[in-house]
């Protein structure tokens, strides 16, 4: 074990204000769009107004004559050099990847796809010149509905493939040897409940739009980009464009949020690199919000067919999951892996005997999907928590009682699940008890009964989500077994300077999470140096050369542990020097509070700062000792981390207007040990907001021609603080047993847990009307229709206007074509 166990006045556990906030708050940030280089040119990108069409001609001659225009390029100019946007997660050997040009060459496959790029002396001139580009498109039939896309002899998104199915990924507990054959549990079921749930398409909507600056130099390039993944981007850019990796430097300066939306190698990054190299000039591209909404990758968009079986007494036996996952028009970096990540989470905290998961990845003429906060796990949690409520209804059991009967008891940890994962620790009973207390559950149930009895037009609904998730991506061997193209380790190095100040270099590239503060707290405890003496360096492949970046709630549980391991090495090096200085045996020294002393004679010690200077001067070091305390460590986790918790939602549903208003939201999360409670709470609050947003507000809607009709924030509704309640949050602590800090991930937990709690509450409120489901987002109109028509049916009514589709399975009457051809 490490020095954690005997740490002095600990930094860990303190609600330190974030180091990185001062410069954010006073506007001293360096966003990519703030970067200006001498001679820099500006790009504007022309995007397809068609969802599916052949490009019959492009005339850029007039655009080239516009003032200030330096060059105009189309896909034809880069057809031989642009390669394909990489997909690093071929989930099956047979997976079909049709290839993804950054600039469309002969065909466009979704609205918003890049078709031409103008290079001009300023961004205004570049934008103006876009209007002078003349393109003829020959429209092709549009593929929007996933199930229709899989019918034989239908229109193909990519004519050179044989079907719109990219892959079918299967897991079955009988075959895997992790549980009973699913067919046995289905056959022997005493009770069977089936449901279809729709995971609507969401748009990550990070605050800072994407922006890229590329400066060519000799053989290589330096790229600044608003990315979550500078290290992955460097490697992938090198492979995609055939640039030697050591000639590529990627810098992620201040990055304003990502939520998975910047876990990507984007067409725009490739286009900037191609243009900069072609012209030998630095270039910048910054997207508008409208471009971002239609061309940055989307999330979710799945149809979930779920079957649960149980005994009459409520013991669950089997879970059968069939997904259709909309890939959109192309496969991006980890598109196919996103639904597959959920495969191991549908069984959640419950003890199933048999389990099957089948996922079909489908191409449509929509923006590609990829990672969005939670990535596969919110979908899984939603489905299991919704169907547990449905099963409780079928059995006429209290939904919490059904959960209690089936969840893993705290004395059963470590517990190996029906899909083969081993949960290391947890206490579902404790978190649930605390959450029930926090929200005042029994009192709310009494009030609910009273309001039902007097037919109050505003009904109270109570929703539960008892969730777990797997995060901290990831053990490299597990990723290998899932055919992911890289490992899941993280790197850190520590440099102890002559004056005793410390530089911590991390490969986990922060974009708003607070790594600088949290890493400083960890190192302050590990090395016994003051919090303010620590500088955290990240986000530049030159100064932080090794890393796998930030996503999947991995930074602390993988990257933070790498920091601990690097600090351990510093302490061991320092111990040898201290022993030499104190003329003592290294084994007789103890290290506490930043000072080595001979056991039994405190006060006679040497501080880490004194040792740092001795190492720097190197006048008198032990024979063979290198004059440095610096260290480097790479940590590969043995297991995922499994945060869990109980989220409870009390919602007022106005049955006359359909409006659902959250009255109380309480959650108790078990994220193991906590480094900085303030940061952890911030992650929970933000996560809740995004999960609640899926339940009640957000939805990307396409019309029958494949136009994104929710193309601005007027129509794509993001809730703000004024739309959300004050959250009641609490914690239980079941330390992780698989890492030395006992920590679990927290970045996605709020998003993963909250969505089903809210929807369960809405459906619970409508129980007197026999309503079984309300499709997300639970808009007032959908709720009103559910009330008006009762029992399910209308609850899935398409929210959008005639001629548009709210998801791939809805009706597609022809649209009026408004908005088509607009330059955006």
């Amino acid at each position, binding site marked *: 074990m490490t020095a954690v166990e005997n740490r002095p006045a600990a930094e860990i556990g303190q609600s330190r204000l974030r180091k990185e906030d001062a410069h954010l708050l006073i506007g001293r940030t360096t966003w990519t769009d703030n970067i200006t280089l001498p001679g820099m040119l500006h790009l504007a990108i022309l995007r397809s107004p068609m969802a599916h069409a052949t490009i019959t001609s492009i005339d850029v001659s007039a655009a080239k004559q516009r003032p200030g225009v330096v060059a105009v390029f189309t896909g034809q100019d880069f057809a031989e050099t642009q390669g394909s946007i990489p997909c690093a997660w071929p989930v099956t050997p047979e997976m079909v990847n049709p290839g993804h040009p950054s600039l469309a060459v002969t065909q466009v496959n979704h609205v918003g796809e890049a078709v031409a790029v103008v290079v001009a002396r300023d*961004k*205004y001139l570049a*934008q*103006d010149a876009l*209007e002078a580009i003349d393109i003829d498109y020959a429209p092709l039939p549009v593929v929007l509905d996933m199930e229709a896309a899989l019918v034989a002899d239908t229109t193909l998104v990519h004519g050179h493939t044989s079907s719109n199915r990219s892959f079918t990924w299967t897991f079955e507990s009988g075959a895997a040897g992790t549980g009973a054959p699913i067919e046995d549990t289905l056959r022997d079921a005493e009770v069977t409940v089936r449901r279809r749930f729709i995971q609507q398409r969401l748009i990550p909507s990070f605050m800072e739009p994407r922006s890229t600056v590329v400066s060519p130099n000799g053989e290589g390039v330096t790229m600044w980009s608003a990315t979550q993944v500078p290290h992955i981007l460097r490697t992938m850019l090198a492979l995609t464009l055939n640039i030697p990796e050591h000639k590529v430097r990627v810098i992620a300066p201040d990055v304003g949020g990502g939520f998975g939306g910047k876990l990507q190698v984007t067409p725009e990054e490739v286009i900037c690199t191609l243009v900069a190299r072609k012209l030998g000039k630095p270039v910048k591209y910054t997207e*508008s*919000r*409208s471009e971002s909404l239609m061309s940055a990758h989307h999330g979710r968009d799945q149809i979930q067919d779920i079957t649960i079986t149980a005994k009459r007494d409520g013991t669950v036996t089997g879970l059968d999951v069939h997904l259709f996952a909309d890939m959109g028009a192309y496969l991006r970096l980890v598109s196919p892996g996103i639904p597959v990540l959920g495969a191991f989470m549908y069984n959640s905290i419950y003890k199933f005997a048999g389990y099957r998961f089948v996922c079909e990845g489908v191409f449509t003429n929509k923006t590609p999907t990829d990672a969005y906060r939670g990535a596969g796990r919110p979908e899984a949690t939603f489905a299991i928590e919704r169907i547990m409520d449905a099963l409780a209804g079928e059995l006429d059991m209290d939904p919490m009682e059904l959960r209690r009967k089936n969840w893993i008891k705290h004395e059963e940890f470590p517990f190996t699940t029906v899909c083969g994962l081993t949960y290391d620790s947890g206490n579902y009973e404790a978190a649930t008890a605390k959450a029930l207390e926090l929200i005042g559950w029994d009192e709310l149930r009494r009030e609910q009964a009273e309001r039902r009895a007097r037919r109050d037009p505003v009904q109270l609904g109570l929703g539960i989500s008892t969730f777990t998730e797997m995060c901290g991506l990831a053990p490299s061997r597990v990723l290998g077994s899932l055919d992911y193209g890289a490992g899941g380790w993280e790197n850190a190095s520590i440099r102890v300077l002559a004056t005793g100040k410390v530089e911590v270099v991390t490969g986990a590239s922060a974009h708003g999470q607070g790594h600088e503060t949290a890493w400083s707290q960890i190192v302050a405890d590990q090395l016994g140096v003051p919090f303010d003496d620590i500088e955290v360096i990240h986000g530049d492949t030159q100064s932080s050369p090794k890393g796998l970046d930030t996503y999947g709630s991995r930074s602390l549980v993988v990257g933070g542990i790498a920091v601990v391991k690097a600090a351990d090495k510093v302490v061991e090096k320092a111990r040898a020097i201290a022993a030499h200085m104190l003329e003592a045996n290294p084994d007789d020294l103890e290290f506490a509070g930043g000072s080595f002393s001979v056991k039994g004679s405190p006060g006679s010690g040497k501080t880490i700062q004194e040792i740092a200077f001795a190492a720097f001067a190197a006048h008198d070091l032990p024979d063979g000792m290198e004059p440095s305390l610096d260290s480097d460590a790479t940590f590969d986790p043995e297991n995922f981390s499994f945060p869990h918790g109980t989220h409870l939602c009390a919602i007022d549903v106005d049955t*006359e*207007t*359909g*409006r659902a208003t959250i009255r109380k939201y309480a959650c108790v999360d078990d994220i193991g040990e906590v480094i900085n409670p303030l940061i952890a709470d911030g992650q929970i609050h933000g996560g809740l907001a995004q999960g609640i947003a899926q339940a009640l*507000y957000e939805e990307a*809607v396409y019309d029958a021609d494949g136009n994104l*009709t*929710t193309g*601005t924030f*007027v*129509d794509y*509704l*993001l*809730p*703000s603080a*004024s*739309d959300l309640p004050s959250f009641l949050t609490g914690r239980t602590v079941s330390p992780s047993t698989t890492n030395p800090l006992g920590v679990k991930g927290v970045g996605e937990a709020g998003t993963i847990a909250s969505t089903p709690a809210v929807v369960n509450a809405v459906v619970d409120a409508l129980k007197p009307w026999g309503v079984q489901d309300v499709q997300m987002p639970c*808009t*007032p*109109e959908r709720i*009103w*229709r559910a009330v008006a028509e009762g029992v399910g049916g209308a609850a899935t009514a398409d*929210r*959008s*206007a*005639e001629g*548009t589709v709210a998801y791939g399975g809805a009706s597609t009457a022809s649209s009026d074509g408004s908005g088509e051809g*607009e*330059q*955006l």
Partner: protein
Amino acid sequence: MIPASFEYERPANLDAAVRVLQDGGEDAKVLAGGQSLLPVLRLRLSYPELLVDLGGLAELRGIREDGDAIVIGSMTTHDEVLKSELVRQHAPLLAQATATVGDRQVRHLGTFGGSLSHADPAGDLPTIALTLDAQLHATGPGGPRVIPASEFFLDYLTTALRPGEILTAIRIPKLGAGWSTHYEKFDRVAQAWSIVGVAAAVRRSNGSIAEARVGLTNMGTTPLRASLVEDELSGAAASAATVASASRSVTEGTHAPNDLAGHADYRNHLAQVLTRRAVLAAAGI
């Protein structure tokens, strides 16, 4: 998003503004805060060649009392309207609705007159002007004239303002004793456009409703008055049942839009519920 390029003029007085606007002809647009116009320009949905910014016209700002009315300069910002004691006292309905417009930043830049001239049927303030029987003062090449609110809103984003004409002030009659008002706005998130809005003004007398006015937001291509409801309520008993019954007539003569924010049948239903609630709240029932 970057607008196409345009010329910009900021005249110092009303006469100059009218002249510049007239010279600009069809391709000139008035900039009166810009909270609706600028998004349209940035999305390149409109390509005016000249913007005439009224922001320098002090004479169009401010709120004053004028006998039985208050007069609000067209370039008075929403924030100024909200903070006005005169508005709060004599046109509380306007204050209540203005508080729901956009966010704080929008309310500091957007203007009352700009909102009325833009005439978005999902906007709240045109409904308020209509409900309060406002008189709209305009000045153009032909001199000043007064347009009643009932004749001002002609169609979607279309008003009775003639080419070269500028809305200068809005005269709102004071509601006398016995009147009370309420605005019910229904939207999905704060800072959004109304899916449906209902404004109610009610004068009670001896346990009955002596007079009622009901205005509707986003139930057609212009703000509307629900005259059938008004007629049914006038002289009726001030009871929940009467109000509920009258509210059912609210969709008469409306043409609710059918769009992403709501289907027409849902809006029709909402209008009935919100009318009942607005009238009950205004009448204190």
